[in-house]
């Protein structure tokens, strides 16, 4: 795991956690975790339920004070004093966001905008951005789960936050909504926000995040780009194809799998050569790379 020297962590590092631990009763929820979140970076925080993801996010918000270690958000300790400056610069979407059912969508957003000291003039465009401008004057109690989640995202986006902390943001969203959700996130990242996405549905983070941090029982077990993690986990790509009837009688390096297909694992550098060596009659050629879920399972096993 790469450590950042103090010289490097100037204003570039938006959120910095070092050696952070937190215990709840007998349970060590977070155990000596280092984590840096830089501007314009989108990091996936993955782990089982109870791996310590939410606790880490709450420590960044100053809602939970670490027992040991240091948390800095824009250079400020978020749990000291009111943590006002750091919280003004953060956007937070809690897991299963709960909002006041008696208020309308527009009133909810206005309430939070006032708390953040933002002009209310931005709100209409925010509601449009998350696609619930049509329901703005309805009470939140009448909203569907997807609409509540959108409104939750809208409040997290108030005031162009420097860092967005999204706890299981897409759980319970339908696929179309999920896509528009990630589009918004990509746009924010282009604008230079640091984004932390916690999730246990890894497959959908693929292609959305620059870096993945894997948590297991409060410890960080992996941290890096998806391709680095693949190498670290020593999970090589596999090539599969369906030979025609007259295919190689001696499969050699290939092993037979269901459906009469052949499969072999190989190094990343050999993929092209092997593909060129396939007979003309080969059909149904596939290159399988371990998905995030496979990687995750490998790291979890390693940690246990």
């Amino acid at each position: 795991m790469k450590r950042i020297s103090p010289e490097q962590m100037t204003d570039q590092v938006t959120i910095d956690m070092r050696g952070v631990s937190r215990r709840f009763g007998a349970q060590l929820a977070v155990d000596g975790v280092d984590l840096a979140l830089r501007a314009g970076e989108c990091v996936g925080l993955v782990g089982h339920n109870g791996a310590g993801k939410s606790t880490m996010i709450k420590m960044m918000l100053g809602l939970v004070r670490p027992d040991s270690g240091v948390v800095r958000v824009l250079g400020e300790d978020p749990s000291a004093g009111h943590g006002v400056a750091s919280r003004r610069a953060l956007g937070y979407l809690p897991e299963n966001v709960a909002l006041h059912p008696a208020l309308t969508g527009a009133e909810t957003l206005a309430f939070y905008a006032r708390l953040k000291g933002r002009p209310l003039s931005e709100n209409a465009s925010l509601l449009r951005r998350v696609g619930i401008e049509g329901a703005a004057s309805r009470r939140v109690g009448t909203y569907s789960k997807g609409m509540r989640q959108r409104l939750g995202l809208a409040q997290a986006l108030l005031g162009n936050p420097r860092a967005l902390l999204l706890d299981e943001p897409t759980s319970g969203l339908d696929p179309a909504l999920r896509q528009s959700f990630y589009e918004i996130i990509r746009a924010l990242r282009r604008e230079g926000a640091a984004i932390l996405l916690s999730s246990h549905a890894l497959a959908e983070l693929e292609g959305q995040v620059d870096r993945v941090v894997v948590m297991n029982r409060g410890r960080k077990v992996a941290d890096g780009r998806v391709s680095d993690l693949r190498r670290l986990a020593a999970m090589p790509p596999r090539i599969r194809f369906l030979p025609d009837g007259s295919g190689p009688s001696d499969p050699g390096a290939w092993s037979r799998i269901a459906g009469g297909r052949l499969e072999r694992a190989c190094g990343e550098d050999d993929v092209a050569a092997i593909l060129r060596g396939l007979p003309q009659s080969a059909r149904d050629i596939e290159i399988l790379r371990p998905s995030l879920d496979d990687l995750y399972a490998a790291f979890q096993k390693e940690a246990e």
Partner: protein
Amino acid sequence: MRQILIIVGKEWRDGLRNRWLVATTTLLAVLALTLGFLGSAPTGAVKVSALSVTIVSLSSLTIFLVPLMALLLSYDAIVGEIDRGTMALLLAYPVARWQVVLGKFAGHLAILLFATVIGYGVAGVAVQWTQGGESGAWAAFALLIATSVLLGGVFVAIGYFVSASVGDRGTAGGVAIGVWLFFVLIYDMALLGGLVADQGRNLTAQALNVLLLLNPADVYRLLNLATANDVGVFAGVAGLSAHAGLAPVTLICALLAWIVAPLAAAILLFSRRQV
């Protein structure tokens, strides 16, 4: 200050939306009007102001009703928001925990203030207008409204204390009802029982004073039933205070202390609490 006002505004709007404001105001107005017109019927014989009689009956009603309303309004305020998850989001904003508690307190107090002033005010005006009487009772009536709001504030603060100290909403509700029973019913019964059993041997007037000040409902009773002479005639039990010799200022300070102490304790507990 700004953050507190934002939360006050939100609580007020919540109160409007969930009909609390309308319900409490209507309830107080209807009961006050009923008591005002039915209860003041016998005034013809004893030649006192109908409003004075209304004050006596209204303050008895208030002792039961306002603490109950205040506790129902407040027991859920902290633990409920934590349970539902709205508190975590709120505290992720640049707002301190004491600001949240004070903002909620001011908002809930505003709801009680509105309900009491309008509910009792309507009844007071109606009684005075239809039945007449000397205007001196107005001061006592104003005192009734002001102290009723204070009494409400006391139990809102106690409700927050309960809400900040227990683990879930169900427990908070149960404890709140227990608090209400204790201060409104059990305490006085126990005190009277004690006085009767003691026959004045050990319980000095001094000790009685302290015991009365230890229950905000009694403080309220003393304030309203004994301070105004005309009203005191009907006060019965609360005539105690004539001997007790507690000045109205002392009583009002006691009520204020009963607001400040639980509120401060609630803020302290909430600050240490895991959200």
